């Protein structure tokens, strides 16, 4: 089959690789009909995530048709499913508590050493996201082997377009959980750093969960305009002092909850970010946490900090004093995708959530390498690329 493989920094290629098949009893094989490039795939593209190997197949946002099932799969041949990016067993202690991304058993035994060293305990397996998360082949391919297919995939009713439901695989549940983690109360103001897909879904979700005001922060006009469309007030950090603006917009109080939907490759124009760039490029730190620092400083006393943005390693100059003295509550983590899938699918079918506005580009899988370059270099215009295996180039 054809698949998008990783070969190093800014080097991804569409190649012919082995076809997947059933390995374990609970497996299924999916024929991919739509797969998206995620902002977090750019962290792999930029070589920020350790334990990648040449030839790894990327992609963790995908859906398709069930073409093969193991004896313990509950799926039926021909069903259309969206697959969560977290590989969770459904039967361990954490899955029992709906903490699917903390699943004990989704990550192969040999791959758990690195996670234990880096984080103390290993997290669940993930599709197409380095060997730290299991080394599983991803979904930017014609076919994918899906382990624990009786737990993860959600069946999509006939007649519903791929474009409407594809983002159930990651970014919609991630934006939703980001807002859920803010424990929003009536009257609350929520500030969101980053108007990429997760940030934009967090804006929508925060309103649906009862926020009175949402303030969105970015520097791309097109993305700020999308946030505005969902009712957010906007701050362009290129032209405005974010800390001062947030204080003034909230009558000196600060936002009740702050969401860092940026993660480890934050851009920014301030001294701390220049310092981070030097540190990271000389390997003295691994992540650039500018947005996170700003969110902690801006948040009101006793407020909530939600971090859906991906971090992989260590940061420097972390404002632990502000975090502790102001008594902020922090909630974060890879998304427990399976937890909210049925409710979010219902919200989409009922027309309460629309995700199709996000898609700016539809391209054939064969053009995936170009798509990465485009997504990396033109983030204002390119909000989301969906790859379609079998699609003929326009």
């Amino acid at each position, binding site marked *: 089959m054809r698949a998008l493989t990783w070969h190093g920094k800014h080097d991804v290629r569409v190649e012919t690789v082995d076809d997947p098949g059933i390995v374990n*009893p609970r497996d299924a094989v999916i024929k991919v009909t739509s797969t998206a490039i995620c902002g977090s795939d750019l962290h792999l593209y930029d070589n920020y995530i350790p334990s990648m190997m040449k030839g790894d197949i990327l992609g963790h946002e995908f859906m398709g048709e069930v073409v093969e099932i193991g004896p313990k799969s509950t799926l039926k041949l021909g069903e259309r499913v969206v697959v969560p990016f977290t590989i969770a*067993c459904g039967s*361990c202690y954490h899955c029992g508590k709906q903490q699917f991304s903390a699943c004990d058993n989704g990550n192969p035994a040999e791959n758990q050493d690195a996670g234990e060293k880096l984080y103390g305990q290993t997290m669940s397996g993930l599709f197409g996201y380095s060997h730290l998360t299991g080394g599983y082949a991803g979904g930017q391919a014609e076919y994918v082997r899906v382990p624990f297919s009786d737990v993860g995939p959600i069946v999509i009713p006939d007649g519903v377009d791929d474009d409407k439901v594809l983002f159930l695989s990651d970014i919609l549940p991630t934006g939703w959980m980001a807002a859920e983690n803010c424990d929003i109360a009536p009257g609350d103001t929520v500030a969101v750093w980053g108007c990429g897909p997760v940030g934009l879904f967090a804006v929508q979700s925060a309103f649906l969960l009862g926020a009175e005001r949402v303030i969105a922060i970015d520097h791309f006009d097109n993305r700020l305009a999308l946030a505005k469309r969902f009712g957010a007030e906007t701050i362009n950090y290129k032209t405005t002092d974010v800390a001062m603006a947030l204080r003034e917009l909230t009558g000196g109080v600060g936002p009740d909850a702050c969401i860092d939907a940026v993660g480890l490759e934050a851009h920014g124009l301030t001294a701390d970010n220049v310092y981070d760039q030097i540190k990271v490029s000389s390997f003295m730190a691994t992540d650039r946490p500018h947005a996170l620092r700003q969110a902690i400083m801006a948040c009101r006393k006793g407020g909530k900090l939600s971090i859906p943005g991906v971090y992989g390693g260590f940061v420097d100059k972390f404002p632990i004093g502000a975090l502790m003295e102001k008594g902020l509550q922090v909630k974060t983590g890879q998304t427990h995708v399976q937890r909210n899938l049925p409710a979010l699918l219902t919200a989409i079918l009922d027309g309460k959530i629309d995700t199709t506005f996000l898609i700016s580009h539809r391209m054939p899988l064969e053009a995936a390498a170009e798509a990465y370059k485009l997504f990396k270099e033109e983030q204002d215009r390119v909000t989301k690329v969906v790859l379609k295996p079998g699609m003929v180039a326009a």
Partner: protein
Amino acid sequence: MASTMTDDTPAATRRDGDRATAEAGQGARDSVTARSVTINRPAAELYRFWRDFNNLPKFMADIVVIDVVDATHSRWTVKAPGDREVGWTAEVTEDQPDRLIAWEGRGDIRNSGRVEFRDAGARGTIVTATIAYDPPGGALGKLVAKLFRREPAVQAAHDLRRFKQLMATGEIATPAMNLAQLIDDEESR
């Protein structure tokens, strides 16, 4: 042993783990490792599966085959560095149903194993495995073993994780894309 009055940790986690474990009577060889996992299945079920030594190669990566001879004896064939195989006969020396199994191996390598099952309420069962052995060829053997990633502490941890996966989910997690890759991965391990 100065800290035993104020340190409640298992012997194997101490900085002098080998000696402390031997002194605690849980092993008396050169290299000792103890690891715990929590598995959300009842102790009786886990004990039953482990007590049938035919099942051990399903999750212990280095074992080629175990032939069960009688109720307390079994013959083990195990992968060793440099494409070699070593073997021993294991005798069950302690057997407390649903709680504990201990065995002694005599052959190419002297070794002992001990696995305990402790009830952890709603979380299932805490399983602790302690492996003690005389490394092949002393210190040199241990170095070679390390190079081949068959260092016992690492291998025991992996084996226990696989045991947990098999008991909790009915299968062992693998990134292999198909059966051919799975067989390749297992052969190169």
